[in-house]
């Protein structure tokens, strides 16, 4: 009788957890349409071969502006972009810590734009950076470092507690991608082929204090230490996005920090001509982010520096890698072709203009 009770209890617990897990999978946002950036972080864990020469960490300045496929095609460098929307420096640190559980890259490239933020900005961005990590001590530490006052740590451990009220907002997308999601990025690169030329920008606002926050320096120190401890070369990078404004005072601080810590700092804004960027054709949102053409130009420029400076081997003749990357290349060019087709048919990319597409549908 006692044995029967124990078995029943175990079955009950298993059933509760299974149901909870199923519900959580259903109720969490899928990020497969419109806000696709939310799917970037989790995609990494589906990678079969987590062994890269270069890992990028940072915000949209990495996942929109560099193409790992180009780095492979041009230099035989294997890379992955662990970027997410408005990834702040403490996100970057913990994402790197988590990545190092799976692999030890030769080089880590960190996008320094996030040094401008010394406070969490929005819960939505926290969710997009944190929820995609598997549950671990790193994830918990990351959530603790990132949370806004109104957020609860427990909801990062059990996201169902945060998203349970989505039950009345569930859409077709939630059921379609309940168990399996589409791949939206190419080794972390979010492709867009559309063009919106840059024109002029608002006058840069005067700041009361141009010094980056102490907490940003603390986390930058931690990233430096983490890389040193793991024998990884760290590169500080400012991508060539024209807005938000990158102040000379900020640049000077990064130059100084890189010098003191013997790091390579590349401010790509200083090399626009050399890169060959044309902001009338190489950006999809008037200079904030680059489109595919711009990202490929940046990758050619950056890849050459990384290869020469860190003596990265050309792995294009490695049969195993060749097969893996050919699959990625095929998916990359397929998406490129599809996006151009969409542009031709609709004048815009559907995935990134859902509202517009819905309005057009209504009018038809």
């Amino acid at each position: 009788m006692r044995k029967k009770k124990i078995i029943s209890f175990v079955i009950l617990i298993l059933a509760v957890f299974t149901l909870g897990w199923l519900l959580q999978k259903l109720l969490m946002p899928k990020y497969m349409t419109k806000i696709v950036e939310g799917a970037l972080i989790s995609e990494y864990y589906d990678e079969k071969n987590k062994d890269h020469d270069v890992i990028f960490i940072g915000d949209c300045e990495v996942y929109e502006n560099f193409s790992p496929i180009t780095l492979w095609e041009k230099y035989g460098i294997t890379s992955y972009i662990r970027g997410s929307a408005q990834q702040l420096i403490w996100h970057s640190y913990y994402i790197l810590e988590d990545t190092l559980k799976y692999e030890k890259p030769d080089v880590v490239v960190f996008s320094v734009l996030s040094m401008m933020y010394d406070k969490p900005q929005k819960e939505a961005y926290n969710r997009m950076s944190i929820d995609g990590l598997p549950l671990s001590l790193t994830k918990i530490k990351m959530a603790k470092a990132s949370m806004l006052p109104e957020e609860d740590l427990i909801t990062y451990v059990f996201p169902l507690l945060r998203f349970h009220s989505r039950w009345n907002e569930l859409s077709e997308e939630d059921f379609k991608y309940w168990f399996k999601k589409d791949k939206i990025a190419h080794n972390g690169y979010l492709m867009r082929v559309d063009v919106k030329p840059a024109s002029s920008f608002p006058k840069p606002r005067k700041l009361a204090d141009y010094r980056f926050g102490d907490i940003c320096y603390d986390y930058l120190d931690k990233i430096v230490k983490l890389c040193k401890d793991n024998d990884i070369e760290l590169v500080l990078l400012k991508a060539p996005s024209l807005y938000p404004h990158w102040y000379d005072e900020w640049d000077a601080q990064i130059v100084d920090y890189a010098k003191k810590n013997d790091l390579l700092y590349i401010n790509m804004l200083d090399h626009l001509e050399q890169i060959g960027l044309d902001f009338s054709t190489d950006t999809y949102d008037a200079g904030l982010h680059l489109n595919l053409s711009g990202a490929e130009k940046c990758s050619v420029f950056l890849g050459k520096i990384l290869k020469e400076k860190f003596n990265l081997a050309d792995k294009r003749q490695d049969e195993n890698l060749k097969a893996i990357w050919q699959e990625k290349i095929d998916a990359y060019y397929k998406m490129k072709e599809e996006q151009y087709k969409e542009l031709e048919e609709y004048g815009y990319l559907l995935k990134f203009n859902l509202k517009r597409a819905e309005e057009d549908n209504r009018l038809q």
Partner: protein
Amino acid sequence: MMKIKIFAILISVLVLLTGCGSSSQNPNPLPPSPSATTTPGNLQTAPGIEEKSIYYFSHNGIDIYMNDVAKPILDALGEPMHYFESPSCAFQGMDRVYTYNGFELYTYTDGDDDTEYVLSVVFMNDGVETNEGITIGSKLADVISAYGVKFVQDGSKYTYTSVNTDLSFVIENDEVVEVSYNLILE
């Protein structure tokens, strides 16, 4: 009997997990809902209900309060000299900048809601001034004379606060080099 007990417990857990959030406390940040209490940035809207700030910008008889709905103001101001838009990463709203003769008007939208609200007004030259007569090039002493000593100093920035608005003056070499009205983001 045991099966009924198990079933009852399972149902209770499910109800607890799925049903405890009422619609008035919808916390789902993704995609953001206009009715969400966790409005990204926690911007306080409903300007018509709130007490008005004593700091607001007036231009050609048009009063511009922070967090006002922007459309009537933009209609009254007419065609801007320049327009710039900056979508937030991952569709979390849109910041827009309208440039007029002497100042820039910043607006924001929140998530899927297309309504624009006034975020900031920034002076570009001495062609415009505050209601108290301060402009680019005024002296720090003029600022203190006009607004008093109840300011908060952060480096070179002197800020006066009323309700939801910060009126800030950036001072360099004893002269005002930037004047801005800013919505206070809580």
